[in-house]
């Protein structure tokens, strides 16, 4: 309920800055010395527009900032502005085609020059310049122009009505960069500006002193930061490299570092590290769901060029009872316990959050029902043969189950294979290196988009709190096929007019309650048709030293979004 209110707040304008600031740790800037952060994947650039990677976004979030960002509850909070524009406060036009931002008074770049609306406009121009390959171009989709009536006012005009106009300049993905610094770096010139890309001038709490790509970043407190008492730390060492286990060890066991990011480790391993008493694990739940996608098309190699397209429906996965039985056979509680512990939750939805968007209509998946699954298949005419594998009309229930190479995923594969064997489905397992599986080389047959297998497993999520683009991934035109060079998000090749109609309605609906209803209906349709089988609602976890205060884990934005508020405990 709290989250729901918070979301309404985003629309109806809730300006309250995070309450965590006021816990008595005031003082002068730089009073707490050095902060040491370790990211086991090292950032390679400080410009999020040139790299979509999470590690780069987060490192850059210490230096450059958006106009507004999401707090730990997923609600929008004003950052470089005084309030978030909404229809109610007149900041968003009635026709949902313009949004007007007003920069806070007296904002300065770290070099001392004033932040103006020209810089905001430039950030849009920079990302949409021809030949630049801006990784965040999606955030500026449908923006036709940006006007700057005065030095503090920015008017963003959209070509279509935008029920959710908080794409441009919002969140860690779309920060404001300085026009003076990047003016010569537009489009194809972007890579010639190594200095700017490594040492961007920003408005954030820290500035880069030295950037060693893929290794270490040293930062110092921004002398021109808008709050004179922040940040508490004078310098930051942002080390990269190694692996998750050694990063966790450096924070929780040896105490060499204060904060470690993205610790994808076995839950008991994390608990053991925490028991050393030097640090603790934190987690926050966003929209990530580990799921199994079911292929509605036939991936047999004999079909040549048209394999995996709707020309050839799948021989048995088009039978809903088979898909349903596969879902019923899975013990999701066990998967969560083994793979994620406190960092995973049970879910029966592919859209698990924000709370207002999470459906409760599919909760029957929470209990495993092997007998029920067997009965369902018997009833549908799939009879077990001598080898225990079910067949019908000469078609054998035998699936190829692929995923990326990752210890937890291989554990899941082994468990699920066993459960499916119990209901008479033969399973062959396959794992593919992540850079190949998630790569989108149309020449490779091993990508998750081509999906030349019967089922595949991976995690996906969406940025921010609005699920429109995410839910649009399962419309008919998103099916990867030769005509689209195998691009698209609809891996199952699911296609339903009813679903497409809901999606069309969602794109023109502005009312937040109505949007939630539509998104839920779309989720329920996918779930009740067993197009995909959600397994685990995954949290994002990190660890911080017991002496580091002010950490508020945030999955909706950069997780170190409030580093300006961090302080040393015990000083």
């Amino acid at each position, binding site marked *: 309920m709290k989250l729901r209110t918070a979301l309404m707040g985003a629309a109806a304008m809730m300006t309250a800055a995070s309450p965590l600031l006021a816990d008595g740790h005031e003082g002068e800037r730089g009073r707490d010395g050095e902060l040491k952060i370790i990211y086991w994947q090292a950032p390679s650039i400080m410009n999020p527009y040139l790299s979509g990677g999470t590690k780069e976004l987060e490192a850059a979030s210490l230096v450059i900032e958006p106009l507004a960002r999401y707090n730990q509850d997923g609600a929008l909070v004003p950052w470089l502005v005084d309030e978030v524009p909404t229809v109610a406060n007149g900041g968003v036009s009635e026709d949902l085609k313009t949004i007007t931002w007003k920069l806070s008074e007296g904002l300065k770049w770290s070099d001392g020059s004033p932040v103006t609306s020209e810089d905001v406009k430039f950030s849009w121009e920079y990302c949409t310049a021809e030949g630049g390959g801006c990784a965040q171009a999606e955030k500026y989709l449908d923006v036709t122009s940006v006007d700057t009536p005065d030095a503090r006012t920015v008017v963003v005009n959209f070509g279509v009505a935008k029920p959710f106009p908080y794409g441009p300049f919002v969140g860690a993905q779309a920060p404001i960069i300085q026009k003076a610094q990047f003016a010569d770096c537009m489009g194809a010139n972007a890579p010639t500006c190594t200095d700017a890309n490594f040492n961007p001038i920003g408005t954030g709490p820290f500035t880069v002193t030295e950037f060693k790509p893929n290794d270490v970043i040293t930062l110092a407190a921004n002398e021109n930061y808008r709050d004179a008492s922040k940040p508490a730390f004078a310098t930051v060492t942002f080390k990269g490299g190694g692996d998750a286990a050694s990063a966790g060890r450096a924070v929780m066991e040896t105490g060499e570092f204060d904060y470690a990011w993205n610790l994808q480790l076995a839950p008991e391993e994390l608990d053991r590290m925490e028991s050393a008493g030097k640090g603790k694990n934190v987690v926050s739940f966003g929209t990530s769901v580990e799921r199994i996608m079911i292929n509605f098309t036939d991936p047999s190699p004999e079909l040549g060029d048209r394999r995996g397209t709707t020309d050839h429906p799948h021989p048995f996965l088009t039978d809903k009872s088979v898909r349903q039985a596969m879902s019923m056979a899975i013990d999701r509680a066990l998967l969560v316990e083994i793979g994620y512990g406190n960092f995973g939750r049970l879910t029966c939805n592919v859209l698990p959050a924000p709370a207002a968007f999470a459906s409760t209509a599919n909760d029957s998946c929470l209990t495993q029902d092997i007998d029920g699954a067997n009965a369902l298949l018997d009833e549908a005419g799939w009879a077990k043969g001598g080898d225990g594998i079910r067949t019908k009309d000469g078609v054998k229930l035998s699936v190829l189950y692929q995923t990326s190479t990752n210890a937890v995923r291989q554990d899941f594969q082994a468990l699920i294979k066993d459960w499916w064997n119990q209901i008479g489905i033969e399973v062959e397992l396959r794992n593919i290196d992540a*850079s190949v599986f998630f790569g989108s080389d149309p020449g490779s047959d091993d990508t998750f988009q081509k999906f030349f297998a019967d089922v595949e497993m991976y995690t996906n999520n969406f940025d921010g709190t609005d699920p429109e683009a995410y839910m649009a991934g399962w419309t008919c035109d998103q099916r990867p096929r030769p005509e689209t060079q195998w691009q698209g998000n609809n891996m199952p090749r699911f296609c339903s007019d009813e679903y497409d109609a809901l999606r069309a309605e969602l794109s023109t609906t502005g009312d937040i309650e109505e949007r939630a209803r539509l998104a839920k209906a779309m989720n329920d349709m996918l779930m009740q048709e067993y197009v995909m089988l959600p397994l685990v609602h995954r949290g994002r976890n990190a660890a911080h030293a017991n002496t580091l205060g002010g950490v508020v884990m945030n999955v909706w934005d950069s997780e170190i979004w409030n580093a300006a508020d961090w302080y040393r405990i015990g000083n």
Partner: protein
Amino acid sequence: MLNYTLRRLILTIPTLLFISFIIFIIVKLSPSDPTGGLPLTIPPEVREQIREALGVNKPLMVQYFLWLKQFFWLEPRIYLEAAFGWDLGTAGETRLISYATRSPVMDLIWQRMPQTLWVVGTAYLVGVLIAVPIGVISAYKQYSIFDQTGTFISMIGFSVPPFFSGVLVIVIFSVLIPTDSFWWLPSIYDTTHEVTDWESFKYQFRQMIMPVMVLALQITAQISRFARASMLDNLNQDYVRTARAKGIRERKVVLVHVLRNSMIPVVTVIALGIPGIFGGAIITEQVFKVNGLGQLLIIAIQGGDVPTVQTLTFIFAILIVLFNLVADVLYGLLDPRIRYE
């Protein structure tokens, strides 16, 4: 000799060109994608624009010749300009750019060189300095306790991979030993650390101990076995008996006559191992976060960063070809019987 060296040097040119082409083809044909590591929230159209901006979609041959031009023509000129202040007209040309950092690959390599040379180079030196005496003594006192112990330790060095031995020493010296103890050692190598005075040298020494010793164990294992085998071959030769019969002191027989002759193959092995120093030690660098050339290479491979992989592996190839030549020449110098005509 000079003729031979020149002939070999000229022959390296087609060899290296061929190697560079093979590397390029292998890297390009592997199904990795520079946008493969990005979050799934980035849509395919945007990924396509990123690939377009990186030049991934150009024809393979165009990409290869562009790389050749940048590596052999543009980059040397840029370094000449920087060194001598000349103007060779490189302004405005696009340098060899890494896909991941969008910065010049050669700068990345220069930046990584110091920590790799410090850690891996020191380990190599330490390894050799320990290995040769062990090999000599083991051979001279074959089957003694010293020899058996040396064999045992070498076997450990051979068979225990650094991702085990590295983590083991971290658990012992960084986790189990309290942070304020004299024996505590940092588990994470600080690449920004600069040696300016005695205190900072001490810190540098402390942070190098674990990675250097883990690496040196492996190097010692290999080279001491070579030294031992080579010494054994020579100790039973007729010339050794002759030397002893002439009444030369045992010490001189072993350390001058036998050692010099047995060092010929060992020196070759040591010379051939030197390019490996520049290649870094991928696993050990990862374990201790040394972030040298090995780590740069592995990150580039994982990220589908073709220009970086291509340039690094090609530089390794150059070093291997050159040090093969050096080993051959050294062979001739150490053993007058060997003549290259």
